[in-house]
């Protein structure tokens, strides 16, 4: 049962049961962006406040499995109040953590790139997801929405 415990680490169950930064922000001024996984119906809505190059506030609503919900909660905790550069770096690092497997689908031979887990903090708890390929989409749902939201904000300016 070790794989399963690796997936459902205590920290993940904790974020699932008590999600952080849950709620809405008035929009506008906050930027609202939605993520949706058609295969399983998981949904997440993000509200992003960006001021002076800083993601000053983030709130989210949505429903879905423990992985998608805890990942969005963990994400919000990791990026809230951070400069956009750091946020972008975190998104990239997280995606790299998750794509070890996805790219294996494309070219079997390609070696997994190593991700420096120390930079991830609590997010590293999601590492176990990589062993469950179908759940990667759950874990990345909120992150893709965040990426999209930040891009939309950048394009507005």
């Amino acid at each position, binding site marked *: *049962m070790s794989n399963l415990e690796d997936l459902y680490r205590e920290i993940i*169950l904790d974020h*699932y049961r008590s999600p952080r930064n849950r709620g809405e922000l008035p929009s506008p001024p906050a930027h609202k962006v939605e993520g949706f996984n058609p295969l399983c119906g998981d949904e997440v809505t993000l509200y992003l406040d960006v001021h002076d190059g800083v993601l000053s506030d983030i709130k989210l609503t949505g429903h*879905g499995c*423990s992985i998608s919900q805890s990942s969005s909660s963990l994400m919000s905790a990791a990026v809230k109040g951070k400069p956009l550069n750091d946020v972008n770096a975190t998104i990239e690092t997280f995606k790299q953590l998750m794509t070890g497997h996805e790219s294996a689908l494309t070219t079997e031979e390609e070696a997994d790139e190593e991700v420096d887990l120390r930079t991830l903090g609590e997010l590293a708890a999601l590492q176990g997801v990589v062993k469950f390929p179908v759940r990667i989409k759950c874990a990345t749902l909120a992150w893709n929405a965040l990426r999209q939201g930040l891009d939309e904000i950048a394009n507005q300016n």
Partner: protein
Amino acid sequence: MSSFNVRRIRADIPLLQREINGRKITYLDSGASSLQPHAVIDAMSRYYELRHANVHRGVYQTANEATEAYEGSRAAVALFLNAPGGADEVVFTKNTTESLNLIAKTWGADHLAQGDVVLVSEMEHHANIVPWFQLREATGVEVRFIPVGDDYRLDLTKLDELLDGVKLLSVTAMSNVLGTKNPIAELAEAAHRVGALIAVDGAQSIVHGVTDVQELDIDFLAFSGHKMLGPTGIGVLWTRESVLDTMGPFMGGGGMIADVRVDGFTPAKGVARFEAGTPPIAESVGLRAAVRYLTGLGMENVADHDHELTVDALTRLESSFDGRVRVIGPSDTKDRGGVISLDVEGVHPHDVAQVLDQFGVCVRPGHHCAKPLMKRFGLAATARASFGPYSTTRDTDVLLEALTSAVSMFG
């Protein structure tokens, strides 16, 4: 149940011998796709090893054998369905979905126009909804839904009103989410009373009991090989010959034409008209082996077995978990098949399925391609366990054990 022996059936299915996470597999996802007995797998291998060739246009020996194999499969399917017109009514497609699209895109496009109504139900699989929406976009037909009641069955109290203006009633014989079996013969009679035809989605029902198209008095029947112990890559559209003759061609290409000139083409007669290009030949051989296997078991026996498993599982699910595990489907087990959708309080279906996997239990989480139905019951998804002819109460034992673990893990 003389010829029905679950132990023997299980021994026939190689995948049931597999271990998952250190436990023998507990396969409860036959609603998504069934497992195949050796007889089916080996029939296809032998076909490739001994007699593969393209069909219909060859005169050499293996081409004859391949053609006879393919046409023989058509005849075997016709017999299995008790098709009044025999093999001439059996079109091979890729899957149920293509079969239903074929109805919409040929018969539907030819016979329906703005103002005509296609009546489906709220419990349909997307395969029996989206093609009609596409037809609506193309022609302006109305797509109307028979509601599903709180008892998880079709609400037919206003059937007469619902049938007003209907030219086609297209409905599933058994829900892939609820397990509900619909009263097809009764619906066929009602449809015919108003001059409508009836198409039946038999994807689930085909492997859960006897399907006799004459007894049901239906006009179209769609189903897939892979849900009835057969291979992927093949489906069936059975159509009453008098209806089939009124349907224009589908895909264009080789085999479906009588003539092609630079200025136009003439479609072929009969089922060939709907089978453009090289058909699923090996798959037809596998499907025939599956039909033979199921016929050997006896579809009445298969249905009885399914019923026993369902009654047992529903009873045990109800008496366990203190109400934390809710069955989304009829509790009345009459006209109800072995598809059991679960809603586990506080545990998302994906997580249920994930925990169950650790016990080697295969169930499917999701909307099961029935989003309108999900919406009707305010659910995003369920975790669905579904039985096949090879399932046993031992499978239910493991299911319950694993569910207990899931409930406590997220408790």
